[in-house]
């Protein structure tokens, strides 16, 4: 029997009277890069947090490789192979940057038996190299700029060797040159392989992003969110022409 690689079914989350995510369903195949877009407050980040287990859904199912992972603890979800980044970066400020990446290297999924601190440090260094901040490895995380914090967040995520990577606004606050670099890294990561000691599964990705021009270059498929519901789902070319999407972003023409 075949099953979708990743599937969300009728996922719902309410905060008091506000329904942030309302009966959302979609499927994602292995090796896809999916963009998740929508106006502010559409519930994109909430959806991501439901998937990564930081929030618990009120109803609905999340299935990964045929396994129901709804309501798993965050670490159990990482163990299954799904890792998300935070939109508002959450570094361990008083620790060196390298230590920030060593922590996810220590999760049961990424940790091989008998790996000692030195080996893990080398692995973390490779993750930093991949996102391009390895020269600052020994500085405290509090000394990083906003753009570098975003990259650190991605380094932390890929250190867990995920099969499904959820990126929450990876380009937010980056300048065009940095965006271009990061987009390149993301495509490289998606191809998979080994980066030094770091192993990449070539993860499937869901990317939340507001910078549509950059996003459209990377993704295979776009899901559009509005008021907690999916209003469109298709290739980038289809989405930019979709009337409901234009309406959600710009508003209806008043004549």
């Amino acid at each position: 029997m075949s099953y979708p690689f990743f599937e969300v079914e009728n996922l719902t989350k309410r905060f008091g009277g506000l329904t942030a995510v309302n009966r959302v369903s979609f499927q994602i195949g292995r090796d896809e890069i999916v963009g998740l877009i929508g106006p502010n407050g559409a519930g994109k980040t909430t959806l991501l947090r439901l998937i990564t287990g930081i929030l618990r859904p009120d109803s609905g199912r999340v299935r990964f490789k045929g396994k129901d992972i709804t309501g798993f603890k965050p670490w159990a979800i990482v163990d299954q192979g799904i890792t998300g980044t935070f939109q508002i970066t959450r570094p361990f400020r008083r620790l060196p940057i390298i230590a920030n990446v060593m922590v996810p290297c220590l999760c049961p999924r990424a940790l091989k038996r008998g790996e000692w601190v030195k080996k893990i440090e080398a692995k973390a260094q490779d993750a930093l190299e991949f996102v391009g901040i390895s020269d600052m490895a020994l500085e405290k995380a509090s000394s990083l700029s906003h753009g570098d914090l975003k990259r650190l967040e991605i380094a932390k995520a890929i250190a867990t060797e995920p099969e499904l990577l959820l990126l929450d606004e990876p380009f937010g606050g980056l300048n065009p040159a940095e965006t271009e670099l990061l987009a390149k890294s993301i495509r490289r990561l998606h191809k998979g392989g080994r980066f030094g000691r770091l192993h990449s599964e070539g993860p499937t990705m869901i990317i939340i992003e507001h910078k549509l021009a950059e996003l459209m270059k990377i993704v295979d498929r776009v899901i559009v969110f509005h008021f907690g519901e999916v209003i469109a789902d298709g290739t980038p070319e289809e989405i930019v022409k979709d009337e409901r999407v234009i309406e959600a972003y710009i508003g209806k023409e008043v004549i």
Partner: protein
Amino acid sequence: MGTISIYIGRLYKDFKGGILVLPSRTIAFFFCLLLLLIPLITTEPYILRVLILSSIFAIFAASWDLLSGYTGQMNFGHALFFGVAAYTSALLNLHVGLPPWLTIPLGALAAVLAGLIVGVPCLRLRGPYLALATLAFPLILTGIIFVIPGITGGELGISGIDPLSGSRLTDYYIAVILMLGLGFVMWKITASKTGLIFHAIREDEVAVRASGINTTRYKLLAFCLSGLFAGVAGGMYVHFMRIAGPSTLELMLSFQAIIWVIFGGIATIYGPIAGVFILYPFMEFLRIIPEIRMLVFATLVVLILLFMPEGLTTWVRDKIEKECPRCKLRNIATRKSCRVCRADLD
């Protein structure tokens, strides 16, 4: 003879390159050496007694640091572990007749169990709520002890316990070597993978969870490890003082641990040890002016915290050592360039 001199030469080289290269290591080395050699200078029972108690409380304070300094789980009832181990050791010794070298580890195991019992309900609590909840546990146990004076001796406590060993000198060496050994073990734990996760939990627990690490397990581990070391201290205390009273569960003892740690330098392990070895003998010294003893003590602590908010050892370390801006290795403050990467200091 030739071989021996080569070995001595190599040992001297290691000593010079490994210990004399940094003033902090030199200080730590000579502190250990001094502690081990003090009986050659004096065998005054009173001085040895002060140093034995300092060693015991140093283990206790360092164990608080391991839990609260590293994982940030503020434990305001750390005396619970001390007291549980103290009473367990005392009861086992008195009623079962086990010797001290068995009762102390068993007492420590009881403290580990106490760590689990406290840890589980406290997992969901954070900040002031956690502090208040942990504060309650030793009070509850004190209440239980007063309810069943038949077993626990009530307010008088349990007396008539076997001494640690026969002589004061042996007691001294047991306490000091155990303190140095356990201090080293704790320091190694904090430098390991587990220690890194403890650090990260203090910084941002949600981010650690999102990194795929079971924080519940690590927080419980921190409670248990801390309980283990505090338990050893409690068992030692009982066999040294030969009485297990409710004072081992006192609020004051919990707060004293916190004062020692914050005075010496939080999240360092060596800080609390230094803090105890400075403050405890100092308190004893102040017995010459009993009326204003507490006042002098409090003033000293407040002044230290005012001018060295990160604790004494951290402050001193920053004064005598400089961190290389490039490779982050520490160098003696008098050097102009880093000893490894030759980068300009300052």
